[in-house]
């Protein structure tokens, strides 16, 4: 089991974010929350986390700003190695479409996805797996994917 880690959740639904915090803190992780991509980036630069949990959609008009932030992080050599777990609701609209790091990593360099509605057990399993991996497989995106 991965030891306690610093995790930042970037999610604009504060109730969901706080519930995820409770879930992750039950495994002794230290969790911060940011409700916008801008605040998230600021928080990441202030204190480098071991893992980023990043929502896709933000704001009342549900713009996919999470995509932009993921790409921005991977283009920053100081931040690109941090694994990203993306929270997506795409499956509500396209139930047969599932993002996959293998097929979508060319434009969406995140390490794994968790689909809403999230289940606590699934969240913990995916977080555990990414913490054990330690380094993002897209650390050298877009030029090369780390093996």
């Amino acid at each position: 089991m991965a030891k306690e880690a610093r995790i930042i959740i970037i999610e604009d639904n504060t109730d969901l974010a706080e519930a995820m915090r409770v879930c992750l803190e039950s495994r002794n992780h230290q969790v911060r929350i940011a409700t916008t991509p801008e605040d998230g980036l600021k928080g990441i630069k202030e204190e480098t986390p071991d893992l980023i949990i990043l929502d896709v959609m933000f704001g009342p008009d549900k713009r996919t700003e999470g995509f932009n932030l993921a790409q921005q992080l991977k283009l920053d050599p100081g931040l690109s190695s941090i694994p990203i777990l993306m929270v997506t609701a795409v499956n509500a609209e396209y139930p047969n479409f599932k993002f996959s790091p293998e097929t979508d990593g060319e434009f969406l360099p995140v390490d794994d996805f968790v689909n809403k509605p999230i289940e606590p057990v699934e969240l913990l399993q995916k977080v555990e797996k990414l913490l054990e991996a330690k380094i993002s497989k897209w650390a050298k995106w877009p030029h090369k994917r780390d093996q």
Partner: protein
Amino acid sequence: MKEGSSQQSQYVALVSHHLQDSLSAIQFCLQLVLSGSVGQVPEKVKEMISRAESQTRHLLHFIRDLLSLSRIQAVRELEMKNLSLLKIVENVIRELRPRASEKTISLELKDSTRGSPAYANRETLEQLFINLIVNAIKYTNPHGKVGVEVIEEDECFRIIVWDTGIGISQSDIEHIFDDFYRAKNAKQIEEKGTGLGLSIVKQAVDVHQGEIWVESELNKGSRFIFTLPKRKTAVALDKER
């Protein structure tokens, strides 16, 4: 009209995302409580929370189906291309085989095509097959059978999704494709279905200019039969409009 429909579809999508967001948060919190992560919960409280969690799950399915229906209804000019109907069916069957196996239901495919492509929208067709086959599995008892037969005719493909399940009464058949309609015996199997699954199927067939109908007998099984025109016919039909 087209622009209005597209705007409506976007609006429904936006509203659905908002609803889904909140419901996801509710469900996560309820599951967290049920898991014991925030402390021990008395049995009676656990039962009530479990019921609440089940209702949120139902609402989430409902929103998903509503989105699918809205998308198909609004976007009358879906991106159509030549594609292999058989490959789509094979992929859907592969995805659903574990679900059928859980109920020890055999899932069969019979291919009577000559290899011609269908002119269709991939996502809509996948949704169509998923809905029909999931329904067939849901309403078939363990050790029963579900199958798909794809037949190529001169002007169209004829697809049959059949099962040896509970069947549909003649009075229900008339309404089976109506929004929110649920057959009486279906409610005994699954109390909380959305009633949109077959509406989605009908819309999906309609946008491909096909036809769909049902043959069924109570306690013996059902056959959902639909046609998909081949490209030439679809284009010709378009010109007639």
